[in-house]
């Protein structure tokens, strides 16, 4: 039996006036999957993510996230997802502890749970001694790991990562992907966009968007085979070229 889908998108269309940002998208993301969401800038990735996160309503189509409808149940969706962007989104003039408390607080966790999980988190990252350090003085790699840990602190069903590794060195990126795998192993579905094609290889399945449409969707291995490419970079280039011809 195939695992239950946690994100269901059927014929999603999003228009801004005459401009069609998302043109009839249909895909499913399975529970616990690491789903890569690729595409050039302006291909419509951000629009789709906003819809999935409940920030914007589709023009038409059926979309459910974690079992909730994006038209009517955005509040329930928000409670069940985590989000992290390229900017890492931590408050620079708050300490590590205060950031954790703040973000956990807005998801409605009580103080006891927060303190327990915080200890877990800090010892997991091995940064207990940095608890009272201001975020501003942490190196980028640490900020990124911390931002991810905070994004899944409330144990969401799905975590959306919008280009989470931008500007970080390769070693830190590798470590970051280890954290992603851990999260997926714990049953959290990971929905990730990225610019780095080598990262696409780490995903269970990858969708590639071109001009508002999903042009390819499969496992990295299957895609490479179908496009007769050595790596994901090749797949991406061939798709883009096919489109422009």
């Amino acid at each position: 039996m195939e695992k239950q889908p946690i994100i269901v998108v059927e014929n999603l269309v999003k228009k801004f006036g005459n401009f069609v940002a998302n043109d009839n998208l249909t895909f499913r993301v399975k529970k616990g999957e690491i789903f890569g969401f690729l595409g050039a800038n302006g291909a419509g990735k951000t629009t789709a993510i906003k819809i999935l996160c409940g920030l914007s309503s589709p023009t038409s189509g059926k979309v459910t996230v974690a079992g909730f409808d994006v038209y009517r149940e955005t509040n329930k969706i928000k409670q069940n997802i985590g989000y992290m962007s390229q900017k890492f989104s931590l408050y620079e003039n708050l300490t590590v502890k205060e950031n954790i408390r703040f973000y956990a607080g807005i998801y409605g966790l009580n103080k006891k749970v927060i303190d327990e999980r915080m200890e877990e988190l800090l010892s997991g990252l091995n940064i207990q001694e940095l608890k009272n350090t201001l975020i501003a003085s942490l190196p980028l790699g640490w900020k990124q790991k911390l931002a991810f840990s905070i994004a899944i602190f409330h144990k969401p069903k799905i975590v959306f990562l919008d280009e989470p590794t931008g500007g970080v060195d390769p070693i830190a990126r590798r470590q970051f992907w280890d954290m992603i795998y851990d999260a997926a192993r714990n049953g959290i579905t990971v929905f990730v966009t990225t610019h780095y094609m080598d990262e696409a290889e780490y995903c269970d399945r990858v969708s590639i968007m071109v001009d508002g449409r999903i042009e390819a969707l499969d496992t990295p291995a299957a895609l490479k085979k179908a496009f007769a490419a050595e790596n994901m970079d090749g797949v991406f280039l061939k798709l883009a070229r096919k489109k422009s011809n």
Partner: protein
Amino acid sequence: MHRFLGFVKKEFFHIFRDGRTMLVLFGIPVVQLLIFGYVVTNEIKDIKIAIFDQSKDEVTIEISNKIISSGYFKLEKNLDNISNIEEIFREGYVKEVIVFEPDFARKFEREGIAAIQILADASDANTANLIVNYTNAIIMDYVKKVNGSNQMPMKIEPEVRMIYNEGMKGVYMFVPGTMALILMLVSAMMTSISIAREKEMGTMEVLLVSPLKPFQIVTGKVIPYVVFAFINAVTIIVIGHFVFGMPIKGSVLFLLAESFLFISMALSLGILISTMAKSQQVAMFISVFVLMLPTLLLSGFIFPIENMPVILQWLSYIMPPKYFIIIIKNIMLKGTGIAFVWKETLILFGMMLFFIAVSVKKFKIRLE
């Protein structure tokens, strides 16, 4: 509620940890008030005056001497022709001319009333007002002494004319003006910057994706500034009253309520600005050029609205501080209640609703 309180707490952390924010919030208001207070309404000393005495009797000479020996004034010239007055003002160094009517002593003693005309160069409005007040006080002091033993009180009627600036009003302009300026600064500028900062740092995205409602996010950001702006309003009123002797004739409660209304209006304006500005710099820029300069220049704070070109007068009608200044002056100086300022109050309230409505609309469009 629990989530919301955590949010407000975070906002206070931001403010207390940022030295610059603290400075803007608490340092600048006091410094500004003191600067405006002491620089704008400076003590006067050795102001050059001219006297046109058409009577030259014992009373006019005594009054002249009293004025000149006060230390505030220095006699530059005795005029003997009315046409010299304009000329001497044009030259610029004489700031005040005192004119005694002919037959001064006789009128004063027989009819019990005599007239003095005080003309002041009001191109420097505040100084003009001050020196006229000082002159008046000296004359009144003389009258009081003369009347001390008399049964029939005698009167001197000073007629004041502000040359170049007829409509100038209120030496206490600076307290309401500074208050409007500072509340505008703290409320509108600081909120717009702090919301723009969240956008710049990317934390706004995370907040929007969280279960917090946009309404809660905005209110949470605004509440600390309401508190601080209110503290500032009280500070200014206290300093204005006890340091500069600004009277508070009306109800203090009403005064605070109107301040609160103005703060809310300024905050909604700040929110509107933040919906337009993507970065802190842009928010700052808009605040300074759209809020601060017009507040200073067009609200009647420094330059009297009556003397502006018609177009600028029209423009002043859309300046919120103008109405606040009118309200504050009415309450503090005249002791009037809502009956006299309901129109201005309503305008401020309307402006607030307008800014909120536009912000909500803009906010929705941006989310799409």
